[in-house]
């Protein structure tokens, strides 16, 4: 069915409307008098109601109806905006969201809640109705139902009957865009008709207004369709037109049509003899054509202007376009292929003596990079949409916990790749929840600490190079460093008498299960599920840092790459294999002689300017055979403030890498996050250094710190 094809479009639109609605409601809560906002809420509800019924979401249409009514009253200035109403509407919005089919698996539609919301909104309307005296309410009868009531009882509708219809349209009927001739044609389709036109209303030519209708008709109709069908023909007829329908047992149009052949003859018999002879001249056709002539005239005169303006408007109308993500992904994929091929072209051209080829290659390179940039740019979305979602979260959570919290956002226009943005949602929610739950103190407690009762959570985003920096700061209680340290030592995560730096201490909060300790959570609270946050951010090739001052507040910084499709990598070689290490976390590269390794009895540690840094031998880890060179290199990377080395045979250099996933069969391979195709067509695996380090780093660093 046609409707099904459009259902997807509706769901998309309604989802957007609902998030817009949420934002508007939150704004409305602050500016309760703002007419524009009220209008916007009403329109959103109205559109949802109107459209949902069309696409099979009857439940939604029914549900929205009463809430829309509340806003209709508000819009007319008859009800004030109250917190109760906003709460109710927000709750309703959530229900609608579920009805749309979102989160259905997680949150089955709570019918009790739906009923509660409906009851509450009905009560608001009832409360209003009771305060308004009945005479103020004008109940306008449904016009289409009005004629039905005076018709013949229903049981008589069956069977073929004959009706006489008197139809005298309002003189202004053309002004409403109606054409009485079409109505007569429609009647003709219902059954056998004989029609008499009355022309006695036509004035002298001098007084005639060609835009008015002077005719009226008497029609005899024999049909089995009943009066409803006849009324339907005239459904759009205004009250100023005169329509009478009577069932007439004495007349039968079928008989009339058999006895008298055709329209003219009927007219001769029934119409006023004074007009019957030359009625064809006064037929309403000339009237019509006159109007049309006039219209044509005006049309042609304005055509020139129109042509000019049309070209102009076409540019105006299409400023943005909605494209499915699949199409975009396809484009990015193709561009990635192109980038890869182009790299091969450069390599081959560099070996060629043909200067023309070299020149063209350079040109192709330039365009390829431009194309790549703009293709990736299409996927960029401002982070503001994500930020604004959190206003609601903060509002609900702080209400629930009895805290007063305000959310401010900065740098909402900062753009991030759509995929990154989507995956960022959950970690951010987690962090904000932590901030409200454990960071911001109760209002009373805050007063005691000489802080304002209203706590603040600040979200900020900014771009620096190929990264986006997102900071979530609160002015809450902060993290008690010593508590964390004590806990870490008790859990044997840090050695006693450790001289761990602040960031090393805070990084303990990311250790899975660390935070479950009651003592820490009750005092500083941080770390509930922070390991989940860390993992999510690392999956995006970003990293998390915590800074905190006791009693002043905590800032959590997320550093994320602008896009996931392309990374800057460091190309390294081990035996015949080439690997890529993401450059963003690489700090430096050092050389290591076989003799150096022997000095530390083969243990995997290096001394860098006095610091002891553990390293992982990739050759060993991936069991790569072949002769081990005498001089090897260690790439030192910083992962969450901890330095870890990765030993390789040789560092080749920097390489911009188009990330390709490995496909389903390899998705569980640890330590490899993807692959890329190099200029010569060979495949290089991209190392997931965080994962590689994860397994060994903590144990390793403990062993080393204890050894020192």
């Amino acid at each position, binding site marked *: 069915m*046609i*409707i099904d*094809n*459009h259902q997807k*479009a*509706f769901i*998309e*639109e*309604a989802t957007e409307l609902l998030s817009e609605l949420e934002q508007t409601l939150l704004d409305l809560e602050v500016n309760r008098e703002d007419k524009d906002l009220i*209008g*916007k809420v*009403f*329109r959103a509800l*109205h*559109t949802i*109601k*109107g*459209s*949902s*019924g*069309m*696409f099979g979401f009857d439940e939604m*249409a029914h549900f929205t*109806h009463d809430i*829309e*009514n509340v806003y*209709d009253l508000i819009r007319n200035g008859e009800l004030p905006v109250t917190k109760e109403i906003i709460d109710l509407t927000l709750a309703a919005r959530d229900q609608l969201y579920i009805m749309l089919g979102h989160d259905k698996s997680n949150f089955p539609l709570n019918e009790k809640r739906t009923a509660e919301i409906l009851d509450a909104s009905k009560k608001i309307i009832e409360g209003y109705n009771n305060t308004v005296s009945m005479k103020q309410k*004008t109940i*306008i*009868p*449904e*016009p289409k139902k009005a004629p039905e009531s005076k018709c013949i009882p229903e049981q008589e509708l069956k069977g073929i009957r004959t009706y006489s219809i008197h139809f005298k349209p309002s003189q202004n009927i*053309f*002004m*409403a*865009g*109606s*054409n009485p*001739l*079409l109505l007569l*044609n*429609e009647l003709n389709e219902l059954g056998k008709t004989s029609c008499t036109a009355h022309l006695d209303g036509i004035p002298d030519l001098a007084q005639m207004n060609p*835009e008015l209708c002077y005719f009226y008709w008497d029609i005899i109709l024999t049909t089995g369709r009943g009066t409803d069908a006849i009324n339907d*023909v005239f*459904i*759009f007829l*205004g009250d100023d037109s005169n329509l009478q329908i009577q069932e007439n047992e004495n007349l039968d149009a079928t008989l009339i049509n058999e006895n008298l052949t055709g329209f003219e003859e009927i007219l001769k018999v029934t119409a006023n003899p004074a007009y019957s002879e030359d009625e064809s001249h006064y037929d309403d056709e000339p009237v019509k054509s006159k*109007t049309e002539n*006039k*219209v044509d005239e*005006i*049309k042609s005169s*304005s055509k020139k*202007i*129109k042509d000019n*303006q*049309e070209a102009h*408007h076409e540019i*105006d*109308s299409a400023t943005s376009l909605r494209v499915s993500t699949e199409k975009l992904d396809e484009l990015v994929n193709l561009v990635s292929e192109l980038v890869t091929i182009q790299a091969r072209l450069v390599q081959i051209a560099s070996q060629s003596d043909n200067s023309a080829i070299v020149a063209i290659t350079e040109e192709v390179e330039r365009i390829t990079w431009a194309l790549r940039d703009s293709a990736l740019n299409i996927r960029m979305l401002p982070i503001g949409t994500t930020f604004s979602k959190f206003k609601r979260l903060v509002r609900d959570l702080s209400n629930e916990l009895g805290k007063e919290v305000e959310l401010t956002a900065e740098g909402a226009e900062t753009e991030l790749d759509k995929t990154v943005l989507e995956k960022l949602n959950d970690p951010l929610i987690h962090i904000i929840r932590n901030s409200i739950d454990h960071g911001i103190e109760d209002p009373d407690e805050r007063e005691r600490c000489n802080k304002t009762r209203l706590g603040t959570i600040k979200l900020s985003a900014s771009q620096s190079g190929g990264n986006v920096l997102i900071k979530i700061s609160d002015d809450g209680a902060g993290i008690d460093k010593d508590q964390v340290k004590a806990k870490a030592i008790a859990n044997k995560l840090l050695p006693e008498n450790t001289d761990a730096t602040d960031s090393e201490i805070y990084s303990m909060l990311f250790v899975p299960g660390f935070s479950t300790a009651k003592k820490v959570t009750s005092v500083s609270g941080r770390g509930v599920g922070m390991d989940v946050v860390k993992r999510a951010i690392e999956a995006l090739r970003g990293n998390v840092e915590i800074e905190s001052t006791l009693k002043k507040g905590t800032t959590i910084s997320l550093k994320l790459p602008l896009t996931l499709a392309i990374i800057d990598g460091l190309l390294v070689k081990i035996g015949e294999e080439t690997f890529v290490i993401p450059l963003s976390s690489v700090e430096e590269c050092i050389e290591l002689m076989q003799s150096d390794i022997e000095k530390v009895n083969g243990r995997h540690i290096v001394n860098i300017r006095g610091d002891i840094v553990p390293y992982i031998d990739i050759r060993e880890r991936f069991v790569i055979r072949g002769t081990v060179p005498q001089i090897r290199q260690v790439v030192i990377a910083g992962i969450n403030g901890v330095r870890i080395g990765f030993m390789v045979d040789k560092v080749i250099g920097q390489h911009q890498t188009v990330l390709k996933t490995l496909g389903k069969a390899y998705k569980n391979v640890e330590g490899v996050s993807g692959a890329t195709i190099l200029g010569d067509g060979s495949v290089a695996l991209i190392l997931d250094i965080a994962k590689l380090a994860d397994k060994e780093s903590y144990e390793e660093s403990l062993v080393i710190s204890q050894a020192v």
Partner: protein
Amino acid sequence: MNKTILTVDDSSSIRQVVGFTLQEAGYTVVEACDGLEALKKINGSPLHMVVTDLNMPNLDGIGLIKKLRLDPIHKFIPIIMLTTESQNEKKMEGKAAGATGWIVKPFKPEQLLAVVKKVLG
């Protein structure tokens, strides 16, 4: 020549359904998201019919109908408004402004076509 119908609605999904249905039936369809855009898009060009929503930002359906009825070219074209059951007052207002008829949402594509055929012939 195909008859041209302008459909005006702030809901893109409704526009899509109306547009799709009418195009399938062989009409040429012009879309606008509110009254103001509708006027811009018409801009003196000939139209055979308008299907408009009533509740829209910038210029609502009633306003659009009034404007069109003042325009000599569009004085007599059929204008159908999309209403909901709860909008009786609006319907009367629209009728007074010069709307030819109305379709109550939710409607099926067949209903839309029936009404278009009814007023357009």
